[in-house]
């Protein structure tokens, strides 16, 4: 115990040594990243994208309305306990503490959902996290912007129905879900169960244990069961393994649809030729370079400040990092309009997120035209938009193959309400009245 205290004192010393003297006009953004471990191939480009966008805002605009952004990375390795430690370490930095946190892990999101209300720091879980956290009345601090897993599963089923020629054709068909056996992979099951009852298809969930580089038995099962479609809910090495194994058992890749976390370059490039034809949902955006990349190139990359490899810029996950950072920055900007151009607290940024309204013109001005659809967050709807498309890997690049789909709120809204109410009851939370809240 004494040694523990001594060591603790040393850590405190090291921590104070590490903390830079913070100037007053700064807004701090903690970056929970993972550049090591089984999920690193996907974690690295995302982390680079996020960092590059924040750097670009500092270099090009001198911060947000004169308030400079500061940020620091902390390696979570996708592990929940390390993620919590990182969050605790970074939440108090900067003159006003952390503006927002993006854990990029469903497990860490679940843990931080318990802590964020106490610390008054909003969580931006763009395209992941708890599906029911879209209900802002209960989940005041969670923002699953651009889409939840239930939206994703719903859109995937809409696309399958379209390919088959109508929702009625799904009756008697078999749809398998190959999923990462964690809260992340399990999220869509509730929705797919509900849809299978409604549309009359057989739903076959097939779990893959962490980290997912061993999938022989799962794909033998698929060869045996011959599902009409396979949905893939994987992350990190699991994705490329799934695509490779599908090639090995000769399951048609164009009958596989990945979630948006299973639809990036690191997921298909390792599979080589076996990846061609594989489809995935898009979190609105795909790969490619847009107007914003010109500024990134000019202000960050050409100055040698980017950690990203040149070929990685414009990849799906790099772009996603840019978008995540942009949404956070715009939330701060929105909040500044109300609270003044000064460093804001997490609580004020939360207000900015809840009143975030990105119109088509604003998206164009930000350099994201053709990437995002308009987004409007409200107290009752923390998701903001439920639009998604699909893209397909042709062996060299991702090609957009579908029109926009909208998540079907007739199915989604009641499920969100019910599950959020259950959470509220368990945690003894009284939901806010959204009609009163501004």
């Amino acid at each position: 115990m004494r040694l523990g205290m001594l060591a603790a004192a040393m850590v405190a010393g090291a921590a104070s040594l590490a903390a830079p003297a913070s100037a007053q006009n700064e807004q701090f953004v903690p970056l929970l990243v993972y550049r090591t471990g089984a999920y690193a191939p996907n974690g690295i480009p995302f982390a680079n994208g996020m960092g590059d966008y924040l750097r670009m805002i500092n270099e090009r605009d001198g911060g947000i309305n004169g308030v400079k952004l500061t940020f620091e990375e902390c390696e979570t390795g996708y592990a929940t306990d390390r993620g919590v430690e990182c969050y605790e370490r970074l939440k108090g930095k900067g003159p006003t503490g952390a503006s927002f946190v993006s854990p990029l892990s469903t497990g860490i999101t679940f843990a931080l959902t318990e802590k964020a209300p106490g610390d008054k720091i909003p969580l931006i879980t763009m395209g992941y996290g708890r599906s029911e956290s879209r209900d802002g009345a209960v989940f005041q601090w969670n923002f699953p912007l651009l889409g939840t897993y239930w939206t994703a599963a719903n859109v995937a089923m809409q696309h399958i129905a379209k390919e088959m020629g109508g929702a009625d054709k799904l009756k008697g068909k078999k749809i398998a879900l190959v999923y990462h056996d964690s809260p992340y992979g399990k999220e869509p099951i509730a929705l797919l169960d509900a849809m299978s009852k409604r549309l009359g298809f057989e739903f076959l969930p097939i779990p893959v244990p962490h980290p997912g580089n061993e999938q022989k038995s799962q794909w033998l099962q698929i060869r045996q069961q011959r599902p009409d479609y396979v949905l893939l809910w994987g992350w990190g090495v699991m994705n490329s393994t799934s695509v490779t194994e599908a090639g090995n058992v000769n399951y048609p890749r164009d009958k596989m649809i990945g979630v948006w976390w299973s639809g990036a370059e690191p997921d298909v490039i390792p599979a080589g030729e076996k990846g061609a034809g594989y489809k995935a949902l898009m979190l609105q955006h795909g790969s490619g370079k847009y107007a914003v990349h010109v500024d990134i190139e000019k202000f960050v990359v050409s100055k040698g400040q980017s950690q990203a490899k040149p070929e990685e810029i414009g990849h799906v996950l790099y772009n996603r990092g840019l978008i995540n950072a942009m949404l956070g920055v715009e939330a701060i900007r929105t909040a500044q309009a109300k609270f003044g151009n000064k460093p804001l607290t997490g609580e004020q940024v939360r207000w900015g997120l809840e009143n975030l309204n990105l119109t088509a013109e604003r998206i164009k001005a930000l350099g994201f035209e053709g990437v995002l659809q308009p987004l409007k967050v409200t107290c009752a709807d923390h998701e903001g938009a439920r639009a998604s498309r699909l893209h397909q890997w042709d062996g060299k690049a991702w090609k957009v193959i579908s029109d926009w789909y909208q998540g079907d709120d007739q199915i989604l809204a009641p499920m969100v309400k019910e599950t959020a109410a259950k959470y509220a009851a368990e945690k003894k939370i009284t939901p806010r009245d959204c009609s009163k809240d501004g």
Partner: protein
Amino acid sequence: MIYREAGQYKTSYVDDQAIFPILQDKAVVLAAVAAAYLLVPAFASDYMYKAILIPTVILALAAIGLNVLMGYCGQVSLGSGAFMAIGAYAAYNLAIRLDFLNPFVCVLLSGFAAAAVGVAFGIPSLRIKGFYLACATLAAQFFFDWAFLRVKWFTNYTPSGSVNAPPLQAFGLDLSSPTAKYLVALTFTVALALAAKNLVRGHIGRQWMAIRDMDIAAEIIGIRPMFAKLSAFAVSSFLIGVAGALWAFVHLGSWEPLTFNIDRSFQLMFMIIIGGLGSILGSFLGAAFVVVLPIFLNQALPPLGALVGWTISTATVSHIEFMVFGALIVFFLIVEPHGLARLWSIAKEKLRLWPFPH
């Protein structure tokens, strides 16, 4: 000189049976406990509580549990993660199904659930030993990983399989502040550590140690192996189960089965190997070492690198952390196989002679 027992006479049985018969020991322990209760809350920050103190205190309790089984009774176990999970899910189920129960009552009761399961998985130990027993306890680990992932009743049918602890309250007080959580965890750990210390020095503990040192000889002198082994499994699982429930309720607040996977079992085993097998103090030292060292390396390396003009990326830090941690474990096993607790007893020996060593 400082640590000399000469002149301390034991004039009654009560004196002879005291937990800490030597005055200096008693003073050190009391001072440490007093510091943990009074001094720490005066200085610790939020971060210290949540990232270091609360995990250390809870994992120390789990390490004591494993030490009872492995260090005192000599039964190798790789299933401690599973017993933590049983504690956590038992407490969760008690809390949501009997919602009039106080969360801390649930935590304590969950220990009994873990103890029952521990006895069941301890039965193979009556026939098999060593590596084979390790495999049997490994079965417990995999079985409960599977059960909490697949049997939806345990997780109250939540869509994602992740569950939440109820709010922490007692006697109308809100105990969700870091200081309160720390004090709660500390109270559980200190009380149970004291109980464990008393058990291991009493007749039950002597039976465990006899079984550990030579089971056949122990049986010949009249120790019942079944009672000794199963009681060690029960006590060990109880302590680990309570630690698991505290980990879930007090530390995390929301968890999934992955929290208590095989890595947790290994982590606990490292703790008692580094801290010292067969030592309650060693469990505390080991827990502190295993919790603090990675965090310390993680935070100290970038500024140290900056001193010599080397920018270390977060990835490099985490690679170095793995290497240093692994190297230190090997170093300890070679240089001091009896763990940190042994260092402390060597220090006491030296203090006894100081300043006139012979």
